[in-house]
C-alpha cells in the first residue's frame, strides 16, 4: 500500500489534466481494450461469416459442416427441400399471428400500467416479470403438461404454439411500450383536450402517433423472439414442425447447404431493410430542411 500511495501522486502530480494522454499505463490500457474488443467482435461475427461461406459449399455427404467445393446450387434452389420451406412458412404464420395478438394485449397492459392507478400493482408487475425470468424449458414443460391434460397430444399444433408464443412475448411488448409511454410529454394530450378534442380524438390523433414507434419496436421484438424460439415450441408443437425445429432435426438427419442460404438471407435481408429505412429517413429529414 505504501508504495502505491507514493507512486500514484508521482504520475498524477506532474500534470493531472494531461495524465490520460501521456501516461504509458493509460496508453497500454486503451490498446488492451481495443485488442480485446476487436477479438470479441471477431468471436461474435465469425459464425455469420462461416454461414455465408458454407452456403456456397457443395457438401461431400449429408452434412454441410466441412468445406468441399464451391457451388451455387443451394442459392439456385433454396426450396429444393420442400419440408424446409413448409416449416419456414409455418414459422412465419405463427410469428405474424402471435405478434399481432401479443402487441395488442401488451400495449393495452402498458397503457393501464402507465396511465391509471389501481390496486395490486406490484402483483401484476411480478406476473409480467416472471415469464421473462423463468427458464424456458420450465415454461415449455409445464405448458406441455397443461395441453396434454386438456386437449391431448393429438390436437396440439399451430394454435398451441401460437398461444405459447403470445404468452412469452406479452411481457417484452409491455416493457417496450411502457418505456415509450413513460417518456412522453403529457402536456401534448392536455393541449389537445384544451382544443376541444374528444378523448377518442385525442387518443387517435395525438397519443397513438406518439406511441407508434414504441409499438412498432415492440412488434418487431415479439416477431424476432417468436420466429427464433425452439425450446417452448418443441414442447407445444405436437406433430407440426417450425423452422427452428427443422434445423434441430437436421442435425440428426442431414444438414443441407440450403439452411446456410436461409441463414445468410435472414442476415442480409434484415440488414438491407435497416439500410433502406436509414436512407429514407435521411432523405426525409434533408427534404424538410
Amino acid at each position, binding site marked *: 500500500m505504501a508504495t502505491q500511495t507514493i507512486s500514484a501522486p508521482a504520475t498524477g502530480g506532474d500534470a493531472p489534466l494531461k495524465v490520460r494522454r501521456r501516461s504509458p499505463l493509460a496508453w497500454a490500457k486503451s490498446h488492451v481494450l481495443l485488442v480485446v474488443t476487436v477479438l470479441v*467482435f471477431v468471436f*461474435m461475427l465469425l459464425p455469420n461469416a462461416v454461414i455465408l461461406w458454407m452456403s456456397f459449399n457443395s457438401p461431400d455427404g449429408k452434412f454441410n459442416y466441412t468445406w468441399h467445393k464451391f457451388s451455387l446450387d443451394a442459392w439456385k434452389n433454396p426450396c429444393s427441400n420442400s419440408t424446409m420451406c413448409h416449416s419456414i412458412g409455418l414459422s412465419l404464420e405463427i410469428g405474424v399471428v402471435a405478434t399481432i395478438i401479443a402487441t395488442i394485449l401488451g400495449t*393495452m397492459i402498458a397503457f393501464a400500467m402507465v396511465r391509471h392507478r389501481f390496486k395490486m400493482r406490484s402483483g401484476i408487475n411480478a406476473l409480467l416479470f416472471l415469464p421473462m425470468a*423463468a427458464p*424456458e424449458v420450465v*415454461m415449455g414443460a409445464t405448458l*406441455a403438461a397443461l395441453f396434454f391434460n386438456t386437449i391431448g397430444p393429438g390436437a396440439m399444433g399451430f394454435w398451441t404454439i401460437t398461444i405459447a408464443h403470445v404468452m412469452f412475448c*406479452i411481457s417484452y411488448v409491455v416493457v417496450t411500450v411502457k418505456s415509450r409511454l413513460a417518456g412522453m410529454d403529457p402536456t401534448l394530450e392536455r393541449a389537445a383536450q384544451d382544443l376541444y378534442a374528444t378523448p377518442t380524438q385525442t387518443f387517435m390523433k395525438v397519443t397513438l402517433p406518439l406511441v407508434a414507434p414504441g409499438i412498432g419496436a415492440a412488434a418487431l421484438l415479439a416477431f424476432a423472439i417468436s420466429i*427464433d424460439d425452439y425450446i417452448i415450441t418443441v414442447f407445444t408443437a405436437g406433430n407440426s414442425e417450425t423452422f427452428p425445429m427443422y434445423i434441430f432435426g437436421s442435425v440428426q438427419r442431414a444438414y443441407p447447404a440450403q439452411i446456410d442460404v436461409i441463414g445468410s438471407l435472414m442476415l442480409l435481408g434484415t440488414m438491407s431493410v435497416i439500410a433502406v429505412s436509414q436512407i429514407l429517413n435521411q432523405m426525409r429529414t434533408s427534404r424538410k430542411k
Partner: protein
Amino acid sequence: MTTLTEAPAPVEQRGKERKPRRNLTPWMLLLPGLLWLTVFFLVPILTSVSASVQTGNYDDGFKLTWHFANYRDALLNFGPQYWHSLLFSVITTVFCLALAYPVAYFIAFKGGKWKTLLMALVIVPSFTSFLIRTIAWKTILADNGSVVHVLNDLHLLKITTALGWTVGNHVLASPAAVVCGMVYNFLPFTILPLYTSLEKIDPRLHEAGADLYCGPFQTWRRVTLPLSMPGVIGGTLLTFIPAVGDYINAQLLGNPNTTVVGQRIEDLFLRQSNGYPVGSAMSVVMMVGTLVIVMTYIWRAGTEDLL
C-alpha cells in the same frame, strides 16, 4: 366571448365521466393480457407442481397419488445433470462478464461517433436464427479446422484434455465446446445492459478520479465499477437465468457426458411414456433452484451496494 361561457362545459363533462371510469378502464385494459398470462403461464406452473406428485402413464392417464418418490428420482437419478447445468451456467456467466465488460467499456467511452454502429454490430448476428449460428461452431471447431490445428501445434489440446475440458484430439463434443457455444449465445445479453449503465456515467468523473490521484485502475475500481453495478447485476441475471435452462448448446456441441437438466426434461416429457411426473418434478426443482440462486445473488449484490 362565447369561448368564455363554453369553456367550463368540457371540464364538467370530463369530471362526470371520470368517476366511474377511474375504477373500470384499467381493468378492462389489463384483463385480456393478464388472463392470458394466468391461464397459460401461472396455471401450468401450478399444475406441474401437482403433476410432480402424480403416477401413471400416457395410455391410462395420470392420477394424483402424492407420490413424493418422484422427487427422489428427480434428484438422485439426475445428479450429474444438475451439476453440469450449474457448472456450465456459472462458467458461462463469468466468461460473459469478463469479455463483455471491456467491450461495453470501450464502446461507451472510446466509441465516439462509431458508438451506434458498434452496438448495431453486437445485435446484427442475432438476425440469423441462433440454431444455425450455434451449428456453425461445428464447422469452426471441426477436427480438420484451423482452431484445432493451432491448438494442436501449441500443444494446448493435450493440456485441456488432461484437465477434462476437451476429449482426445477434438474440441467438438466436449465441455469446452458447450461453454464456447453458451458464451457466444449469451454475450450480447451481457453487453447490452453493461453498455446502458456505462454509457450513463459522466466521463468527467474519470478526470475527477485522476485529479484525486487515482491511477486508471483505481479510478475504474472506485468510480466506474460501483456506478456500473446495475449493469453488472442486470447482465448477470440476463445471462445466468437463460443459461441454466439452456440445453441447445449441450445437445449440439456436447457429448453424452455433458448432458444438462433441460435435455433430460425434454426426454422425459416427449419421449418416455411415463416420464411426465418425474419431468415435472425436475422442472420444479430447477425453477426453485434458479429462484434461490437469483434471490441470494440479488440480496448479496444489494447489501454490498449499501456497504
